[in-house]
């Protein structure tokens, strides 16, 4: 096959247009760089392409989306757990991998839960002796979190002041929306149990900013917001980048490998145009990988040459290693107090208005690290699966049919609450992805094989989640649904990858023997190569990771621009 080479040499080639890629493109183009962005999926903009205000009854499946739309037929993400022609395999343990394939990646439908990490989250080894410290401190990250807060827009409050939890630092917040009724009920019970329930931090606008209007409270963020009132890469990061006139986006461009010159520096990226099945090469002075944590590791491992026989930037052998996901499990509960609640429009923003930050004292708990709790409930739009399993509902007639059953459905509507724990896995070298020696995807690109297991650290954390959520539900006068899974089921801990917070596969560090990137997310081995997704993370936190992906990408891009100005790149 003939390779089509672009004559132009760009300043920077960014692979991926999601949270990390979008942020990098904004900062670099505004700093004057001529940037080309390769995106494996098609163009997509929620302003024109989202299904806002569609009813479930307008879809013949009543909202069910099948494999192609695992989060529902109107969900704003193209991609999924299983993508035709793009397999991955599992070696030891288990792993699930959700991939977005579109301009903006997974930022169209993500939950917008935007929790900046706290000071402790960058120095866990110093605190509990497990894993490693980051080569970056909270104080160094803080200005970037603040820039992100101000530019993107996020609501929230100063938890540290309200709760005394020092690891929940303040930010630059818009006012949070008032809580929903079920959230207030949860808070009332938690207040008695000394568990903090505070306004959540979501990158959704309660006040208009930078030409983007405030939220109109339709609760449909997952579909992609047609007024750009929440964060997606396409609605917030790419417009200013395009406005500079220095961003070229190439869609349907699946990167295959980073190309390298005789001097050991990156020269660009080769990619497949997925529409025409032709192979292309883009040339650039600097390459930034932001294809998502595992995809970027895959690209490095697939970029083999005589200079780099084990893959690019992998002299340490650490590419793919220390792969983590958040721990996660959910418990729902039936709360009789909520039966026959007068109806009101509880849509609100497309996420929880209150949540529970990590409040525990590990010294007293017998496991390291913590989790936060995402709260659910209210009167959702009825759709596929509505009131499924009503025969198991506490206080119900146990099934049946007819007029009395119909009345039961009405009464139970809105009478459930849900608690989802999202916590920190301790990073381990033996959780990793590697190239499967036998399998390629439809473009002939070798695929990843995952090896991931949980340890007792995570299992004990899961046990604590189960016990806590069940006791909150009981404190509310409710009944937890289902019996608590035991140790033989890891206490209900979700399989790795299912929480969709992959991180660590190209981790940072000061020692080139034990890390892939330096403290500026620049490859130790290849100075004009950077990573700007979850890959650089040294550890997760008891918080979701995307706000930190973006703050880190912002910092990386500023460093990169500075180095270019100095002429060292």
């Amino acid at each position, binding site marked *: 096959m003939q390779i089509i*080479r*672009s*004559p132009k040499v760009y300043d920077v080639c960014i692979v991926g247009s999601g949270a990390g890629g979008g942020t990098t493109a904004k900062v670099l183009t505004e700093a004057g760089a001529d940037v080309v962005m390769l995106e494996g999926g*098609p*163009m*997509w903009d929620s*302003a*024109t*392409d*989202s*299904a806002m*205000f569609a009813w479930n*009854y*307008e879809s*013949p*499946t*009543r*909202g*069910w989306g*099948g494999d192609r739309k695992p989060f529902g037929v109107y*969900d*704003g993400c193209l991609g999924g757990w299983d993508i035709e022609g793009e397999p991955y395999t599992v070696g030891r343990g288990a792993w699930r991998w959700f991939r977005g394939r579109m301009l903006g990646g997974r930022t169209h439908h993500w939950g917008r839960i935007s929790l900046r990490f706290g000071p402790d989250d960058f120095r866990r080894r110093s605190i509990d002796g497990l894993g490693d410290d980051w080569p970056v401190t909270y104080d160094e990250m803080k200005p970037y979190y603040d820039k992100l807060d101000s530019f993107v827009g996020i609501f929230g409050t100063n938890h540290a002041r309200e709760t005394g939890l020092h690891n929940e630092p303040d930010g630059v917040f818009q006012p949070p929306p008032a809580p*929903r*009724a079920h959230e*207030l*009920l949860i808070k*009332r019970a938690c207040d008695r149990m000394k568990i903090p329930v505070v306004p959540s931090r979501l990158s959704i606008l309660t006040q208009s900013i930078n030409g983007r209007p405030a939220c109109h*409270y339709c*609760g449909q963020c997952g579909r992609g917001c047609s007024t750009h009132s929440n964060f997606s890469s396409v*609605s917030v990061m790419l*417009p200013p980048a*395009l406005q500079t006139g220095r961003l*070229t*986006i*190439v869609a*349907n461009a699946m990167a295959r490998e980073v190309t390298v010159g005789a001097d050991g520096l990156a020269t660009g990226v080769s990619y497949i145009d997925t*529409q025409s099945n032709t192979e292309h090469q883009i040339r650039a002075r600097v390459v930034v990988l932001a294809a998502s944590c595992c995809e970027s590791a895959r690209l490095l491992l697939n970029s083999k040459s005589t200079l780099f026989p084990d893959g690019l930037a992998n002299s340490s052998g650490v590419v793919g290693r220390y792969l983590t996901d958040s721990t996660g499990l959910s418990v729902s509960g039936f709360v009789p*107090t909520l039966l026959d*609640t*007068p*109806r009101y*429009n509880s849509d609100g*923003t497309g996420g929880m208005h209150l949540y529970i930050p990590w409040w525990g004292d590990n010294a007293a708990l017998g496991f390291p690290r913590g989790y936060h709790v995402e709260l659910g409930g209210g*009167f959702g*739009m*009825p*759709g*596929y*699966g*509505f*009131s*499924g399993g*009503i*025969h198991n509902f506490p206080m119900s007639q*146990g*099934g049946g*049919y*007819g007029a009395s*059953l*119909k009345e039961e459905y009405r009464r139970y509507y809105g009478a459930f609450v849900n608690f989802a724990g999202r916590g920190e896995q301790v990073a381990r070298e033996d959780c990793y992805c590697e190239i499967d020696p036998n399998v390629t995807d439809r473009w002939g690109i070798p695929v990843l094989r995952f090896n991931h297991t949980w340890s007792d650290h995570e299992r004990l954390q899961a046990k604590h989640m189960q016990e806590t959520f069940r006791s909150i539900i009981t404190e509310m006068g409710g009944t937890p649904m289902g019996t608590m899974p035991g140790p033989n089921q890891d206490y209900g801990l979700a399989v790795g990858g299912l929480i969709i917070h992959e991180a660590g596969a190209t981790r940072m560090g000061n020692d080139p023997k034990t890390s892939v990137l330096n403290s500026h997310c620049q490859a130790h081995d290849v100075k004009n190569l950077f990573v700007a997704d979850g890959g650089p993370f040294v550890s997760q936190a008891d918080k979701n990771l995307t706000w930190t992906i973006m703050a880190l990408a912002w910092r990386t891009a500023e460093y990169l621009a500075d180095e270019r100005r100095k002429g060292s790149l």
Partner: protein
Amino acid sequence: MSGINRRTMLTVLGTAPVAAAVSFTPGTVQAYVAARAQAAQPYQRRFFTDREDATIRALADMIIPRDGRSGSATDSGAHEFIDYIVAEQPDRQTPMRGGLVWLDSECRRRFDKAFLECADAERRQVLDDIAYPAKARPEMSHGVRFFTSLRDLVAAGFWSSRMGVDDLGYTGNRPTVWEGPPREVLEKLGLA
């Protein structure tokens, strides 16, 4: 609004074939528009036979009958949703089809006629034995399984329909101003 649109964003590289760059799939919207178009036309059954469909409809209206507030399951089109979803989900097909045959054989065993030919009291006698999983006799287990999954499908079909949504009093899916729950809600929950 940031005024980004597909055409202004698309910077076609000299080397990339133009056709490749414009073959854009607008994802959800396509599905949404197709679904709307489909909803406007009379439903074309995809899975059940006429007789199976008649049995599903009879069962659906026994599960969710018309009452003072809203119509029945079939008034809402729940049977069409059930046919569509069973056609979409192969794992449901044998259990559904087999369950309908199980029901007919059980009716024949008891009354010497199929479910549809049974009188209302006869139908109820069979349903009473399979509609309450915790109380059902072990030999009814296959019927219980079938009826349980059918009840869930009927509920999903009815309550997600426009009729069901109105009955439940769901008032969202519209732009609004958010001020938290109204006072009467807070009072009912003792939160005022």
